[in-house]
């Protein structure tokens, strides 16, 4: 490995942030990771725009609105390796529960905002337009690696990140874990 630290990023789309919690569960191994990588973008790092020349990006959550589609395509251009982190990113998972019943922006927003309110129901008009279906990342862009799990445990994340940063291909047989 070169003396320069690898540029590492994480992203958070429509998910519960559980995968990031798992990432933080690396605990003291975060210190080891910090020796070889710098975190250049993350929900826990206050940088608004996704930086260029990223070596490895982990993305949590499914793609559910038009803004995320744009962002994901942008991220794909700026990162060398893209990893789907957790079931929402890999399959759609809980985010995709809505796929089976109602489709479209309006139906989902009504269910979320209008139905539960007794008084003065309002649907926010500033949020980006929702997609008809919440989609796993690999249906939008090419994904290099997948870490299923709801959430994936810290060991899995550590293993995959470690292997990828070392330039090896992680082996998922027996390591992947849906649900």
């Amino acid at each position, binding site marked *: 490995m070169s003396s320069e630290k690898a540029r590492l990023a994480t992203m958070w789309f429509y998910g519960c942030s559980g995968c990031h919690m798992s990432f933080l569960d690396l605990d003291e191994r975060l210190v080891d990771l910090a020796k070889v990588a710098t975190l250049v973008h993350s929900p826990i790092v206050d940088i608004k725009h996704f930086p260029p020349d990223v070596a490895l990006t982990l993305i949590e959550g499914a793609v559910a609105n038009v803004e995320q589609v744009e962002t994901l395509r942008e991220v794909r251009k700026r990162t060398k390796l893209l990893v789907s982190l957790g*079931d929402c990113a890999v*399959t759609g*998972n809980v985010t995709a529960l809505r796929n089976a019943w109602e489709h479209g922006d309006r139906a989902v927003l009504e269910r979320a905002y209008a139905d539960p309110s007794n008084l003065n129901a309002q649907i926010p008009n500033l949020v980006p337009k929702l997609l008809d279906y919440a989609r796993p990342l*690999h249906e939008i862009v090419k994904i290099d*690696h997948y870490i299923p799990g709801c959430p994936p445990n810290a060991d899995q994340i550590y293993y995959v990140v470690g292997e990828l940063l070392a330039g090896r291909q992680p082996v*998922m047989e027996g*390591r*992947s874990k*849906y649900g």
Partner: protein
Amino acid sequence: MLHVTLQQGGASINPNNVRLRINGSEVAVPEGTTILKAAALNGVEIPTLCEIEGLTPYGGCRLCIVEVSGTSKLFPACTTPAAQGMEVTTQSPKLYEYRKMVLQTLLAERTHICAVCVANEHCELQANANNHGVDHVMYERNWSCESIDSSHEFLVIDRNRCILCTRCIRVCDQIEGAHTLDLKFRSKSTNVIMDQDQNWGQAMSCTSCRKCAKVCPVGAIYIENENIEFTKDRDIAAFLSKRRRRSR
């Protein structure tokens, strides 16, 4: 060592009269033994989903496909009887790839969301997918919206999780003798139904024996308010069919 055959009726059989090779090592099994059983008797595990001991084999899920030398065709181990001189391969890159595809198509077929499923971590589809390193599904998933029936007192069927292995249908017919469950329609509309496609609560032939929930490999049939670990019982069909054979 057990010498049980899957032939219905269990006629007395001269043991060790079929010799074959499984993954290179020679084994001998009674005539009529399936490749799956022959492999299991000799410590070779072949992944299965629709197969369950004690019921007639179905050959539907195609997870247990094996290669037999001399033909390019693949055979399901659960239904193919071992034959003299057969050379069976149970593991190869091609088989592995095909098994992964089987699991992917099953996962893509209906709305399988492990995180919210009662059978999470006690699911044979999930376990097989994990063991085969199915870390994603290459096809677009089909977000099915099949009906859920909770009209029965305590049995629930969520057809969105069903993989149509028909274990429940077979156990209901062959062990319980009720034949409440069966299939309707074909192709992707195929579904498990009760009696004449009635609500489960109105299905008069159902004896509420719970065996369907016990053998369901996924979370499609389950018992309300019961821990899934307690419900699932893979051995029940084998156990009951053996008992009944003895008492007969």
